[in-house]
């Protein structure tokens, strides 16, 4: 049991962390209560577009995908989110997802299917965001 240690300390001690996500921001890749993800400690190298990273923002831990690599920071967005987050620096990133267990099946992020999915997700943030916003608007109109 590892009570009372932070994710950072855990990764420092063991090198990798398998955990579960909370919320729907990484749907359909990760579903709360069903799926698991494994992150390994971030090294010196910068992350790549498409990487799913665990980072700390405002005291909270977030697992989202990098959609743009900039000189001093990253632009990050959850696969099921409408807006992007900016200003996430290398220092904020604790770990990088290496594999995930979806519906009981283990996948490596280097699997071909995962790479294709990652490419689509990281190259279409604007389209996805707009589509999601439109869908939410439509839902509100239908409800009235």
């Amino acid at each position: 049991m590892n009570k009372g240690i932070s994710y950072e300390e855990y990764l420092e001690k063991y090198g990798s962390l398998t955990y579960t996500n909370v919320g729907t921001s990484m749907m359909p890749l990760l579903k709360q209560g069903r799926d698991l993800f494994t992150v390994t400690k971030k090294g010196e190298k910068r992350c790549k577009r498409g990487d799913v990273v665990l980072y700390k923002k405002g005291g909270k831990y977030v697992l989202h995908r990098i959609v743009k690599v900039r000189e001093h920071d990253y632009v990050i967005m959850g696969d099921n989110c409408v807006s992007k987050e900016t200003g996430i620096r290398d220092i904020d990133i604790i770990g990088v997802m290496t594999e995930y267990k979806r519906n009981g099946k283990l996948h490596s992020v280097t699997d071909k299917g995962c790479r294709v999915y990652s490419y689509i997700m990281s190259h279409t943030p604007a389209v996805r965001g707009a589509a999601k916003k439109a869908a939410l608007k439509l839902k509100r109109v239908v409800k009235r």
Partner: protein
Amino acid sequence: MKLNKEFLIHKTDKETVLVPTGNAAFSGVVRGNKTLGAILELLTKETTKEKIISALKERFDAPEDKIEEDVAKALSELSKIGALDE
């Protein structure tokens, strides 16, 4: 007894990890060896302490009292974190 559905098992070559979902009150990670992995697998179906001990005795070449001790300890720890439906 059975493993609470808000806990997920993850096995690697080296170890077994038990992870709570966001709905569980416990928010840590339980890391264990093959014995814990076997106990957790058995707990995915309704079982008893006696049945677990019996299954492990068949599977592992270890002294009986050591297996009994390990099972009792594991069940006690799992119960403490709310991972068991008893």
